[in-house]
């Protein structure tokens, strides 16, 4: 098998692990604010190897997450594509910034990401369900994702250095 194909397999494997984290690993009591590992992993790979991870991966894993979490089909996918694009567009600036700055940027990104899911797309009025409790939940979700980012970053960096061959 060629190196580039092997690399893809390792990257996909890590994203599959991220999806299983999101769906099964953490207890349901923390369900509303547990970090979204699939997106964190996707951001890392976009930042580290932007030539190997792109729109297709964002679309595919977004749709898988939509199907498995009961969200409107395409909602995770569109958000993943947008975030992937932002990451790739600004990855030169992002990858050289200190880890705490990266975490801060991700905090805002995840906060906005969570707000999108509060739109009641099924209702005729297209109401927003954002209220103070949801803002707090979004804040904690974004904070937990930002806190987890350094851990994800260093684990995936180790994984990349070990498994990905050029």
């Amino acid at each position, binding site marked *: 098998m060629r190196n580039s194909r092997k690399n893809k397999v390792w990257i996909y494997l890590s994203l599959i692990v991220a999806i299983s984290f999101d769906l099964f690993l953490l207890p349901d009591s923390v369900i509303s604010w547990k970090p979204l590992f699939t997106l964190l992993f996707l951001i890392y790979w976009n930042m580290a190897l932007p030539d190997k991870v792109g729109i297709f991966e964002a679309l595919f894993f977004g749709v898988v997450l939509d199907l498995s979490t009961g969200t409107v089909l395409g909602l995770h996918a569109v958000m993943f*594509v947008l975030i992937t694009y932002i990451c790739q567009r600004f990855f030169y600036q992002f990858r050289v910034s200190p880890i705490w700055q990266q975490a801060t940027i991700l905090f805002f990104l995840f906060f906005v990401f969570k707000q999108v899911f509060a739109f009641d797309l099924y209702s005729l009025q297209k109401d927003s369900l954002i209220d103070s409790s949801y803002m707090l939940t979004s804040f904690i979700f974004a904070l937990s994702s930002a806190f987890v980012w350094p851990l994800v970053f260093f684990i995936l960096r180790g994984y990349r250095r070990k498994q990905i061959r050029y």
Partner: protein
Amino acid sequence: MLRREHKVSNISSEAIFAIPAMKPGRVVLAIVFCLVLILSDIRYETSKHFRSYSHDLLKPLYLLVELPFQVSDSIVDFFSSREELSNRVMSLEDELIKLKTITQYIENMSSDNTELNSLWDSAKFSKDNYLIAEKYSLSPNIFQPSLVLKISTQSNIQKNDPVLAETGLVGRIKGIGYGNAEVMLVQDVRSIVPVVSETSQLQGTLKGNGLGRYGELQYVKKTASFKEGETLYTSGLAEIFPKGAIVGRIISINNPIDSEFLEVKVEFSQSPSNKNFFLIYNDA
């Protein structure tokens, strides 16, 4: 690193790492594709035909995550001493005797009061119609949470079958896969349950507002005499949910000036996050 993947310096023959960004045209195309998916799902519910089967595809992942826990459990079981086990059997036998005594007492009481017993039987549902199902996963989606239950492939569960827990109504079956069933919870923003209040006996429709949030009784006229603390039961009007299952409790009643309806907040009687087993009611 392949030469075609990165620009390579002609001086040092090392990668400059100048990777072109995603082509905006592709991004726009992907976004349009996603929007088509979203609109078709909202308008025609296109995903409902294959959504449940996607859980079957994810089953190996679930088993993979469960594997370490199962292995650790079996190791603990293996090393627990014989004495420990015999003590446990003894205590369970004691408990069984107690339970038998209690059951006998209840049987005596119910035989003494046949009229009450028959009334009870008519109000509740036949035990044969219940099917126990274990939780498979609960999605981390606050507004459209979906609970996935493991079911046997031989079970004759159908769409819209109600799902209950010991504390009340949980939701209804939304989709059925090969070995799982997806449940739309009563907390889902798309869920509407016809209810009746316990003391005032008023009818209403209860709309979900998301997991961990209060539900809301819809279109309640300002003259309605709901009381705070009242328990709400399913009224059985839509013929989806059986009559008489507990749904929740009225938490607050507000009278907004700018609306012609009362704002009635309801706390749901159960949350699927801290339960592992559920009952599926099949009336077929």
